[in-house]
């Protein structure tokens, strides 16, 4: 074997390895991007589920909570606000508002024993608290997959492939969750 063909062979081997590596990184990035997309659609499904539950809840509560018109109206207004937004950043704040309004509503509802005994209301309450859990778990899954995609985009050497093919970092979804904020107080 002459020196030239040896050189050619090494060159081809390096080129093939490089190509396989780039293809691997590219596929991984696409996989992660799709995963982020999936996780986001799961959040949207759960948010919509929450929006759909609220009118029923208000309807059931109306009869019992005639003196709490303001609380009921604030929930309805927050729902309308949450439905109308589009961008991810706005969703966070609008849904946060809705969560706050709902928490307040539930706290007020606690004072109405008749309402709390209503089977329909109890069923709706279970669905609502389940939906809150689903939103927060879906959010966690979304943020996990965002973190993985963003790491891949930022880290060397996959960042070269990512910038060459125009992969963009995804924004995390932070929701003001009243349950998480209200951590148990420790007293000594």
């Amino acid at each position, binding site marked *: 074997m002459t020196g030239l063909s040896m050189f050619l062979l090494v060159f081809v081997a390096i080129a093939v390895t490089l190509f396989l590596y780039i293809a691997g990184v590219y596929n991984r990035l696409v996989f992660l991007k799709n995963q982020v997309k999936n*996780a986001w659609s799961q959040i949207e499904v759960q948010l919509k589920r929450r929006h759909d539950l609220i009118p029923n809840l208000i309807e059931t509560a109306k009869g019992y909570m005639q003196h709490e018109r303001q609380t009921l109206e604030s929930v309805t207004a927050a729902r309308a606000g949450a439905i109308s937004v589009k961008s991810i950043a706005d969703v966070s704040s609008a849904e946060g508002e809705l969560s706050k309004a709902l928490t307040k509503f539930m706290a007020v509802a606690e004072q109405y024993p008749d309402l709390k005994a209503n089977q329909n209301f109890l*069923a709706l309450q279970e*669905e609502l608290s389940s939906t809150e*859990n689903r939103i*927060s*778990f879906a959010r966690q899954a979304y943020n996990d997959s965002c973190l993985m995609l963003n790491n891949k985009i930022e880290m060397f050497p996959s960042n070269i492939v990512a910038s060459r093919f125009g992969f963009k970092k995804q924004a995390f979804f932070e929701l003001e969750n009243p*349950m998480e904020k209200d951590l148990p107080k420790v007293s000594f």
Partner: protein
Amino acid sequence: MFWQIIAENKRKSVILIALMGISLAVLGYSAGIFAVGYLNPAADGFISHRSGLSGIIIAVIIWLILLITALFASDSIFLSASNAKQLTHNMNPQLFNVVEEMVIAAAMPKMPEIYIIEDMAPNAFALGKGPDDGKICVTAGLLAVCGRDELQGVVAHELSHIINRDVLYMTIAATMLGAVSLISDTFLRSFRYLPSRRYSCGKSSRGKGQALIMLAAFTVMILGPLLSRILYFSISRKREYLADATSARLTRYPEGLASALEKIMLSGYKNSEAPKAAAPFYIANPYRMDIKNSVFATHPPITDRIQILRSMTFGASYTDYLKAYWKITGTHRNLIPVKSINIGEKIAIRKSSEMPPDSPDQYVSRKKAGDIIRHINGFKFIECPCKMNIKVPPETSAESLICPRCSRVHKL
């Protein structure tokens, strides 16, 4: 996230299962030698590799038959044997919702089937070969004693058995153990009934070497099942810890599972109907609570499991579980695959999502469990204005009924 654990888990279990496979092969080999050597005392030359190899082949065939039956029929046999009823959303919205929440948290591709078992003892188990084919079974007793957070902890524990493909590995291991026990039992028993050599001449054609081989084969027959059992239970215990850790991470609320385990421990019930071979699949051993560390326990000591979960005060990540595990057991064994531990990963523990759980009163919870079972079986519940709760069986043909307390007439 979870696929890293699955990959790492696979490797470890494959090693343990390979060890069990080796013990099965050794057993088959000695069984072959034993059989040929004993039945043909004259055939000195036949104690060869050939008789051993055919022993191995027979052992493997026995195992394969057990495995195939287990993989294709065990789920349905198990479910019908324990009289399990498949659940829809309307029957018990809370359980259904809790499972759905955990499916979202674990990013599972498919919702598992949910079954309820008419059993007063609180317990739960998972079936199915993997994330695409999962089944979760809970007893009515569990639903009666557990609040929402506790139920969530139990469901997350069972789901992680499905995600980690524990049921599949445990089935492979269990059938190997079954084959080993079957072969050694058969031989040790038949040894008793074989014609005694008392009347034959002491100076038979048996050489000294042959006697030694027979002795070795005999030892393998006795030690093989013991060793396989120890291996099997060690796989089982490790997977319980891992499922507890995954449950804490998924729910972000270790106290839920801890308090559910406590209630299971204190319930005082035993699942009398649970098939014994299925003990490792339950969240806690249905026959006896494993209180002490033992090589023959299917589950780690339940008190240890509770304590570990309760000492996770700083977070709900795998690292936190591992630290708590080290603290409680005093060992530094690496329980969770290193790769899956995201160092620095912080998962805050969330607040309890509910009012304080119901009182663990035995009478109240038994009544509640009974109502859950009746609900599933299609009973109608009529609440009379006199606060009497009338339960009407589905077979009733009458059109109306009179309240036994206040004599009001209710239309059905």
